[in-house]
């Protein structure tokens, strides 16, 4: 029961200006690297800095979070669809119409997480 509680609530802290806030997995849309910082985007549109690296987050986050490139992790509950751009890059479109780019190396990772 405590484990469930820990899964639902979270241990990942978000930092913004003077504010420190525990981030709930359900409201987290994505993590991305900006310069050398890892940022978290939280619903509806808040950006927090987190003190983990992308590879560390990979081990902390539940299965709906999938790494899509070396610098980005996305919550697949907020993904609308993927599309192939003309130049061969793969674009990921979120429910809020924002987009991200998927590395070809991580496509198999996505398939594994979606169990296909």
């Amino acid at each position, binding site marked *: 029961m405590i484990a469930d509680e820990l899964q639902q609530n979270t241990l990942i802290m978000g930092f913004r200006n003077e504010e420190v806030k525990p981030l709930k997995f359900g409201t987290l849309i994505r993590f991305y690297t900006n310069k050398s910082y890892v940022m978290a985007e939280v619903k509806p549109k808040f950006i927090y800095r987190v003190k983990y690296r992308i590879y560390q987050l990979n081990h902390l986050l539940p299965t709906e979070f999938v790494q899509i490139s*070396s610098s980005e992790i996305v919550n697949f509950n907020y*993904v609308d*669809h993927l599309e192939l751009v003309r130049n*061969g*890059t793969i674009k990921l479109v979120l429910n809020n119409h924002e987009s991200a780019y998927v590395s070809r190396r991580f496509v198999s990772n996505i398939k594994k997480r979606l*169990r296909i």
Partner: protein
Amino acid sequence: MKLIKRIFSGFCTGIAIGMAFSIFFSKLYGISYVPSTPQFINHFDGLTNAVLVSVVLWGLMGVLWTLCSGIFRIKSWSLLKQTVIHFIVSYVGYTILAIFCGWFPMNWLPYYTVIFILAYVFFWTMVIMHERYNIKKINRALNNH
């Protein structure tokens, strides 16, 4: 250091492949060993020099091959850019080396060019079809969420 290692291994692989092909063709035509075409060998006084130059050219082809494969590891480039740059570098490089090797007469150049282009078009089509298939599958899984 890694680069030097890659260049060295490319050089050796190139020589091995060139050697295999020249032995194969010498056997095919039922002649004693020659590294390349008669036109090529006529440029040199003595077989030793012809073999020496051939070996160096094969090695350079191998080096070109390993350096070109690095283009697909440049993550910030799109697949299109990677493919086009790879095509240009390898086409220019291989054409020059193949002409030096005397592998084909100059009037074959158009056919060679067409085959070269077709190989890249084929590669591009296969990769795109594969990605399209993957994306379709992922989107279907997303809709069932």
